[in-house]
């Protein structure tokens, strides 16, 4: 399904010599160009081209210095990767810029896409690639005092390689001083003619931030003049860790990215690996995956529902919704053995077949939840105070959402119907009947409306899984399926050796690149995998929805009151591990 029309278009416009083409495992047109042309090409793609690429879906980099298999690619030490998305075409485009170690810099595109701001900071933080003209090119995920750029291949990956850690008093003071907020660094004034501003440090430990998030607020009385989110307190280096794990043993780490999403996180990862390996997953495994993913969508939305109500001061809903979530975990436990992080999807299928009696549990739950949801509508969604607190607060338009990289319910609440499950059905979603709920105003309340309706749609999908669960194997018959099927190992030595290697060493995934994005609980979650033909990934890029969503918070909070900020944070529905990875 290679979509080459856009590449021809680019060659016509800029001359065929400008671009190099690369074949990738996911069929996304991938072109190389020089850093001098990058801005021009990106500007053309965003504004001038027919059916433009309006969203900067992802921006990342690859340290290519020890990569072996690079046929058909421009030589480079570092490669900056722009991943663009066109809604009109329903197509992606990957633009790659080769850089050398000596001149690891290229011009910023923050003026083209506001969303590029944090992405460029992240690339600078983790790779040390400079973006000339960026307004605040400073560390974003790591502490300001960090030495080195961890996603470079020569940076140590574990603490034992880094020497003993000491924190003497003077160093502690330096670290503390480095975290002090200085408004001038952000171009903020400390006062205006009539009054002084208050700078309120909210977090990293605060009751309203849903985790370790620090927000520095510039307040005029209680009115928010500006917000500076300081993220990275939940950064655990998942992308760096992937480079030390086998393809198989990285799966548990994905669970902990959006820690409310459970197996939903594993889905894009295993799908991408399967794309690289060329594994076709049997139907039963697909449907099991869909069912479990939708259960986790429900679980995540229930947590959001309760905490959102709590953010605007309602105490009880969170208890009801956690009770419901407990029921979901009861089912998850019966099927997967785990609860929040079941680590249950495998390359080529799932870990086990469904247990006996699973259908009874699921059926009970399908009867249990809908009346409860109806009750919550009365309790929360139709509550006059709840409406007063959320309607018209934190509004943004579809155009703004696309500009800032917003996906998922936040995008659909602006009246734009875009759901990966419908637009690019994966794992057999095209076989299911469900609606994509939208709302029109793009405010806090509408985001809630969309999610609440999504929960009902998830129930519909689960019901279809229950009624039409196909028979058959739960894992693909493919040599790279992990762990491999053991049946024939006792019959011939070759299969036994292959099995032994695959289990002890891990599968060797063919060299290549693949990206798979899915409609996760909070928006589009995608894994961009680079394989160098080794049993471990060369690079894993995790595109999470919460990262751009968090970046947008200041935009929609300005001019509102402090209490509104809490409603906005609640309605955005982020998970800090999903922001920081």
């Amino acid at each position, binding site marked *: 399904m290679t979509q080459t029309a856009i590449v021809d278009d680019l060659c016509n416009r800029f001359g065929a010599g400008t671009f190099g083409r690369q074949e990738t495992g996911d069929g996304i047109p991938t072109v190389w160009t020089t850093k001098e042309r990058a801005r021009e090409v990106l500007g053309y793609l965003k504004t001038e081209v027919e059916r433009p690429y309006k969203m900067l879906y992802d921006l990342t980099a690859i340290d290519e210095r020890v990569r072996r298999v690079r046929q058909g690619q421009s030589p480079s030490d570092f490669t900056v990767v722009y991943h663009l998305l066109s809604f009109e075409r329903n197509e992606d485009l990957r633009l790659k810029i080769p850089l050398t170690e000596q001149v690891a810099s290229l011009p910023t595109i923050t003026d083209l896409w506001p969303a590029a701001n944090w992405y460029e900071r992240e690339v600078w933080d983790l790779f040390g690639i400079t973006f000339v003209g960026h307004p605040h090119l400073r560390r974003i995920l790591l502490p300001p005092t960090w030495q080195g750029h961890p996603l470079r291949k020569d940076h140590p990956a574990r603490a034992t390689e880094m020497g003993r850690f000491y924190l003497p008093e003077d160093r502690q003071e330096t670290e503390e001083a480095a975290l002090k907020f200085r408004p001038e660094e952000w171009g903020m004034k400390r006062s205006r003619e009539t009054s002084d501003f*208050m700078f*309120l440090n909210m977090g990293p430990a*605060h*009751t*309203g931030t849903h985790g370790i998030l620090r927000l520095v607020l510039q307040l005029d*009385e*209680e009115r928010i003049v500006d917000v500076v989110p300081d993220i990275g307190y939940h950064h655990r280096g998942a992308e760096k860790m992937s480079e030390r794990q086998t393809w198989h043993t990285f799966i548990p780490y994905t669970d902990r990215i959006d820690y409310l999403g459970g197996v939903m996180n594993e889905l894009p990862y295993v799908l991408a690996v399967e794309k690289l390996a060329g594994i076709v997953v049997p139907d039963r495994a697909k449907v099991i995956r869909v069912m479990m993913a939708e259960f986790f969508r429900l679980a995540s939305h229930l947590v959001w529902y309760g905490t959102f*109500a*709590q*953010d*605007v*001061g*309602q*105490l*009880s809903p969170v*208890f*009801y919704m956690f*009770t419901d979530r407990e029921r979901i975990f009861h089912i998850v436990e019966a099927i997967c053995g785990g609860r929040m992080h079941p680590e249950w999807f495998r390359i080529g299928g799932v870990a086990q077949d469904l247990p006996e009696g699973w259908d009874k549990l699921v059926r009970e739950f399908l009867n249990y939840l809908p009346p409860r949801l109806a009750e919550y509508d009365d*309790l929360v969604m139709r*509550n006059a*105070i*709840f409406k*007063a*607190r959320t309607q018209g607060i934190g509004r943004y338009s579809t155009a703004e959402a696309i500009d800032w990289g917003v996906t998922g319910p936040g995008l659909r609440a602006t009246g734009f119907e875009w759901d990966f499950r419908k637009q690019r059905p994966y794992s057999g979603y095209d076989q299911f009947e469900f609606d994509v709920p939208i709302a029109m105003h793009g405010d806090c309340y509408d985001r809630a409306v969309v999610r609440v309706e999504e929960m009902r749609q998830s129930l519909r999908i689960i019901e279809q899984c229950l009624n039409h669960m196909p028979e058959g194997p739960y894992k693909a018959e493919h040599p790279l399926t992990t762990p491999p099927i053991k049946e024939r190992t006792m019959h011939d030595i070759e299969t036994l050796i292959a099995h032994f290697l695959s289990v002890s060493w891990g599968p060797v995934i063919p060299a290549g690149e693949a990206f798979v994005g899915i409609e996760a609980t909070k928006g589009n979650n995608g894994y961009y995998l680079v394989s160098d033909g080794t049993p471990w990934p060369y690079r894993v890029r995790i595109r999470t929805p919460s990262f751009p969503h968090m970046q947008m918070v200041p935009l929609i909070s300005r001019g509102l*009151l*402090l*209490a*509104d*900020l*809490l409603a906005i944070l609640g309605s955005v529905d982020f998970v800090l591990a999903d922001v920081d990875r």
Partner: protein
Amino acid sequence: MNEVAFRLPIIAGVLVTLLTLSALLIWLERRLLGFWQERYGPNRVGPFGLLQSVADMIKIFMKEDWVPPFADKAVFVIAPAVIIVTVLMSFAVVPFTPSIVVADLNIGLLFFLAMSSLSAYSVVLAGWASNNKYSLLGGLRASAQMLSYEVFMGLSLMGVVMLAGSFNLGDIVEAQRDLWFCIPQILGFIIFLIAGLAETKRIPFDIPEAEAELVAGFHTEYSGMKFGMFFVGEYLGIILISAMITVLFFGGWQGPWLPPAIWFSIKTFLFICLFILLRAALPRLRFDQLMAFGWKVMLPLALVNLTVTGALVLAGHPSK
């Protein structure tokens, strides 16, 4: 002198009962919230967890009496005392039964209003003295809230005063012998209930605390017994407002068969439960919404109530 000697047991009795009740109320609220929220609440200490409050009290007494170095020490210490003192003083005028009342003032209602206004200072002072930005915002919100609800709280009660023809709370109860004021003064009752919620800083008006946004609002820096005093003050406030609703609108101690004290307790208890139920059910307003609600809705309604009641009283008067 005899008068004082006669009053002393009543004063002591009322004090002990109130402080015990407010401690029990903490247990009651947690159990009721647990019941409404599909969980247990405290049920480990003593029968039904009844001794939970005792355990809490012991814990809170044992805590270090800490004043942050950056706080304004004197004011920081006085603030929690203000709330306890003012609320307890208000109870002086509440007629629990025809015979049990600490001070039978002929301006009882005005005294209650004055004390409730003073209690708001506790929050403002605590917020200011803590020298913490969250506390300060909490204190500011409290003063905004005070300005908004004080006005219509007083006005909402004037209808009752007109019907009873007295500021004395005992007289007001007596005046309800035939008809409780909650019927002719239904509007006044609703307005007073809402003002009472704001007075006690309970959801949906717990804006000065607003734990989601302001950590703990005005008492963020407080711990140990000083925090405990705010806590007890809040629960005393709930009892006070419930008692006042009973006295002003639901005939106080009056009722058939049962002794007056029992009637008074039952009615008050029901309103306490209502307050807790509201906390279980409602979200929190924003402070500008509270102010707009107070000035644009509640104040005009209170004035209408006042005018209509006045007109009816005047119209009925000549025929008497």
